[in-house]
């Protein structure tokens, strides 16, 4: 932790003497992950771009409470619900900005050559960076949570803590999901520009193109465009979109009306119709499934990116 006495000259020189012994006095995987995560966290919270984004998160939080407080029907729950809009725009942007530079940026700059000259493996570098960057997002959201709670008390006399924590926790999960995608991309490609293009392009794709893609899948299966009573599988596929999954999770702790920030061109067939039709919600549409979906967006891109990173030559 701190600066402790001079370099130990005992352990290292002896351990190398033992032929073929892989056991040594060095750090453990946990030590290395923590060290990299801590480094990434310190580096991340000092980033000006990130401070700007979280400044916007906090400013929009205050603005929402203030505006809803002066509206015709003021209510703390609608303020909490409204938070979902700036959160699901700004937090993915912060995650993509933070994640896409993480590995590729260090690779281009050359600091990765210092880090990998030390004992960590490439997998540890990716996972450590993911943990540290997640910490940065969580720290920013923790501040936003406090600001929102205080604003709730000031404007409405109550923070509506349960639903508020639900929305913030869902946002954290959404941010971490985009971080998984962004860091996975960053590990998979050799230039920051490419990782950023893919990251932001993917975000826009999920916002604009998901509906036509899912409708296209429906067309291939059913022979017509979606409309009327939609099958559960269609809605389940629709909810594979992290933004859609986010809206489901954000309303789990109390239905505050968080809506997914997506552009609809009317091909979705109106998802509410089907939800109203079936009294018993099928398993694939159970709300916790959306938590699993978001976790999948963390794990799968990270695993693929790490695999490519492990195999590549660092030019």
């Amino acid at each position, binding site marked *: 932790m701190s*600066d402790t006495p001079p*370099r*130990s000259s005992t352990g290292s020189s002896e351990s*190398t003497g033992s032929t073929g012994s892989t056991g040594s006095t060095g750090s453990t995987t946990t030590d290395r992950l923590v060290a990299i995560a801590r480094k990434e966290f310190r580096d991340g919270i000092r980033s000006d771009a990130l401070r700007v984004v979280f400044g916007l998160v906090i400013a929009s939080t205050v603005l929402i409470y203030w505006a809803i407080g002066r509206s015709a029907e003021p209510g703390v729950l609608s303020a909490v619900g409204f938070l979902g809009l700036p959160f699901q725009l700004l937090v993915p942007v912060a995650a993509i900005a933070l994640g896409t530079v993480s590995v590729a940026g260090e690779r281009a700059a*050359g600091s990765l050559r210092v880090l990998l*000259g030390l004992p960590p493996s490439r997998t540890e570098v990716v996972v450590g960076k993911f943990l540290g960057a997640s910490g940065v997002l969580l720290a920013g959201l923790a501040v936003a949570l406090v600001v929102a709670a205080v604003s709730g008390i000031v404007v409405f006399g109550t923070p509506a803590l349960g639903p508020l924590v639900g929305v913030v926790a869902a946002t954290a999960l959404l941010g971490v999901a985009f971080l998984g995608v962004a860091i996975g991309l960053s590990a998979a490609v050799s230039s920051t520009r490419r990782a950023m293009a893919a990251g932001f392009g993917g975000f826009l794709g999920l916002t604009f193109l998901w509906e036509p893609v899912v409708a296209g899948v429906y067309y291939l299966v059913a022979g017509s465009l979606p409309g009327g009573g939609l099958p559960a599988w269609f809605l389940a596929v629709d909810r594979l979109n992290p933004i859609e999954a986010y809206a489901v999770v954000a309303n789990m702790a109390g239905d505050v009306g968080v809506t997914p920030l997506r552009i609809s061109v009317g091909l979705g067939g109106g998802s509410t119709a089907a939800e109203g039709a079936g009294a018993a919600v099928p398993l694939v549409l159970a709300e916790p499934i959306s938590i699993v979906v978001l976790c999948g967006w963390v794990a799968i891109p990270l695993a693929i990116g790490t695999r490519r990173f492990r195999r590549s*030559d660092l030019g």
Partner: protein
Amino acid sequence: MAAIEIDDLTKRYGDHLAVDELSLTVQRGEAVGFLGPNGAGKSTTIDMLLDYVRPTTGTVEVFGFDAQTETRAVHERIGVLPDGYSLYDRLTGREHLQLAARLKGTSVDVAAVCDRVGLDVADAGRPAGSYSKGMGQRLAIGMATVGDPDLLILDEPTSGLDPHGVARLQDLLAAELDRGTTVFFSSHVLDHVASTCDRVAILDDGRLVAIDTIDGLREAVGSAALTLPELFAVYTDGEDPRPATAGVSAE
């Protein structure tokens, strides 16, 4: 067991042979200078030693551990100043040294390291983004020494250093060699190489053209008066290079 054992190492990028059937051994406790013109394959070789780049064929072992498959065991025992590195602009010098120490599972006396490399302790509290090239180089050399590595691999360590910095580096390397550390470094500053190294390895066009003591090289060329820069020119300027294996076992 040798500190570094490179065996028949080849790295091919498409049609380009960056490193061509390179074999060389560095014994424990010796200082070997790794020389060659730009593009000779020095950095590619060091990159394979550090597992930044994977060989097309051949193997590299460090203290008996395979550089590609037992990377951690290798990296726990070495200190590295890589080619084309950069520091973290937003982290302080102290944070850099602590990062290296944590990753090596050891602790670091920041003041002692600063003293060794000639970095002002007050500067260790400032972010590395505010450092000059020379200060950054001193910090990076300091990071390489954290945890008392048994082998120092330094790619162009004098780069960016003023004469004081070079003198500090000489002292540091002398102290490390006294302690039994093996030193393997590349440099274009041949005077520095001549004063520090037990042997020099000369690479040209991806092939090892010589590895010997400086006296040994003079003897081989048949001219006792030549300086290392002159010898370097003889070995890399179109003179008929000796077969790559000729000097490998010399010691």
